[in-house]
């Protein structure tokens, strides 16, 4: 069987007219190739989960949780044009709420997930109330200080977290193994992606984007600036609460030290930026790549015969490199990994493959005015 990877477009001029694209229908071979990509990816995933030790599945779950957290940040930074440098508060409060509901109130994981999402949304809205008064760069400082308050105060409250040394959050029945839990996390990510996609296609999504470009202009067009700013915070906090609850049960013990500025707020911001603001596919792809990199780099360093010190620090080097990658993304390619995933998504839907037509959202990466 011959696999056709590209529809026969080689004799077309490169700058094909849009009208031509509109009439474009893939050949049966083209459709086969389009179907082969997702099916192939699923097969690779299945092989990856079953062939390697369960800990690989657990780490891949972490990649998907980072994706949910980064999507939460994307709502604020990408859609609404608010900056958050305190996302360890968003994620951590979700995680500790979930642990509290499971181990102190003795409810099921699913109840805890919903409560964590709602509590996450509530704390985000409270922060959003400040954002109505304090805009732009100054608000970034407030989020930074809020993150510090969560780390040094909220996560250590004995009544809420048991002092931060470890709150229990067992995995739910039926998903107690690492591989099964991965499936649960994947479903949750799928639901979040669906919500995000539908929200951005709605009036609320367009209103948020208008806010990002200019709150004044948006207000002139009848957008309720305050309401939609708060909505953006609520949605972001909701996603973050889900991410936190998933994180809690993945670790089964929630510790305050894991929710630090460097390991959550900065890392998630960088995943969001490199993945591409307003580019769901890019964000999920880079979150997974980031986790896989952290996981396989030590093995790779070992097989290449690099010094032991490098092997031990491989994950840290990855963090250093992703910081630099984020700067390069901001300077040269504001759409991030979305530059690649956008066209692939369009190709899968039956359009031609055009690199650089990721589409929509404006060219500027982070766009908000102080």
């Amino acid at each position: 069987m011959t696999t056709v990877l590209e529809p026969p477009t080689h004799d077309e001029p490169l700058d094909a007219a849009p009208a031509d694209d509109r009439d474009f229908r893939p050949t049966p071979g083209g459709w086969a190739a389009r179907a082969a990509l997702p099916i192939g990816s699923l097969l690779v995933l299945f092989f990856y989960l079953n062939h390697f030790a369960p800990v690989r599945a657990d780490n891949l779950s972490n990649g998907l949780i980072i994706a949910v957290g980064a999507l939460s940040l994307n709502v604020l930074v990408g859609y609404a044009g608010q900056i958050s440098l305190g996302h360890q508060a968003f994620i951590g409060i979700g995680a500790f709420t979930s642990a509290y509901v499971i181990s102190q109130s003795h409810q099921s994981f699913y109840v805890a997930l919903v409560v964590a999402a709602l509590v996450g949304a509530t704390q985000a809205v409270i922060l959003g109330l400040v954002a109505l008064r304090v805009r732009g760069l100054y608000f970034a400082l407030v989020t930074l200080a809020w993150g510090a308050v969560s780390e040094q105060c909220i996560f250590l409250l004995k009544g809420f977290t048991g002092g931060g040394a470890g709150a229990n959050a067992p995995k739910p029945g039926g998903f107690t193994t690492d591989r099964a839990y991965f499936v649960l996390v994947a479903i949750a990510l799928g639901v979040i992606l669906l919500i995000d996609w539908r929200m951005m296609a709605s009036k609320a999504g367009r209103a948020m984007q208008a806010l990002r470009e200019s709150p004044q202009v948006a207000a002139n067009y009848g957008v309720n600036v305050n309401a939609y700013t708060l909505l953006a915070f609520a949605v972001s906090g909701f996603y973050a609460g889900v991410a936190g609850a998933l994180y809690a049960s993945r670790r089964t013990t929630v510790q305050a030290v894991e929710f630090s500025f460097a390991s959550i707020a900065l890392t998630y911001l960088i995943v969001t930026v490199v993945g591409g603001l307003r580019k769901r596919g890019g964000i999920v792809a880079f979150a997974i790549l980031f986790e896989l990199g952290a996981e396989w780099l030590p093995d790779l360093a070992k097989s290449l015969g690099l010094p032991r010190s490098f092997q031990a620090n491989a994950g840290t080097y990855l963090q250093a490199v992703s910081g630099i990658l984020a700067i390069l993304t901001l300077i040269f390619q504001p759409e991030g990994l979305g530059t690649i995933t956008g066209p692939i998504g369009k190709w899968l839907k039956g359009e031609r493959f055009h690199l650089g037509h990721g589409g929509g959202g404006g060219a500027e990466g982070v766009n908000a005015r102080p």
Partner: protein
Amino acid sequence: MLGVTLVTPIILGLVQGAGFGLVAIGLVLIYKSTRVFNFAAGEFATLGAFASYHFSHGFNILFISIPKLGLWAGAVAGIAVGAAFGLLTERFVVRPLSNRPKVTVLVATAAIATTAIALEIVLGATKSFRSGALVSGHPFVLQGVSLLWQELIVIFVLVLAGVGLAIFFGYTDLGLATLATSQEPTASRLMGIRLNRISMLTWGLAGALGGLAGVLLPPVTGSFFAAYGTTDLLIAAFTAAVLGGMTSVPGAFLGGILVGLVQNLALSNVDQNHFPGAPAVAVLVVLIGVLVVRPTGILGREA
């Protein structure tokens, strides 16, 4: 009894506040000249602390090995590394992004902090380091609290930096040129001011001030570690700068002292067991209070 819970935190607050002020003056310097919020400022200090520690104790990293050079050489190295890091940041990150929204630059400086923190973890793992005071011993005892020479040095250096920068902005052509570029870059360029030079000057100076804070503060506060500047200094320094309206050098100076006092009074008067993290909460309250009630800061005008 009142003296114990008041005098100790006030003295500690003054000293720590002086350190915050030093970093805050660097933030103000950068904001005044390029209108950028520099979230890498804390790491300027951490890298300065690491450099001064490693140079004074000698190190052997990868292929470079440096012998034990002593505390003063280490201090110079710390300041130099801070300045160099500031200059690198300006050249490779801030300048290419100079025409972009300021939030983009903010995110980029946060990315620099991430990279710097990762490098520090490689250099020093997650250990805490104790660096030696430049001058040891304590000259006098005040209300039962013995002051260290190092603490006096920190306050003295802050006063020196504050006065120096106030003179720089108030009375020199270069200072005036720096202010002019922030307000009207195009016109300033037409008047013959080299924007890139000004930008390099302020980032280098801010880096050096950060490095200086990293050299001077850890011996007073106890220890430093990877991400020390971002976790322990950055928020306080930004709050100090905001208290000064982001543009006032004397305001940042006073703001630093005020934040140091607020943090230490909160720390020593609130029971950590019942209410952990009182200093962080106090800083958040001060920050939101200033931003909502008096966004122009305590001194209220650009100076």
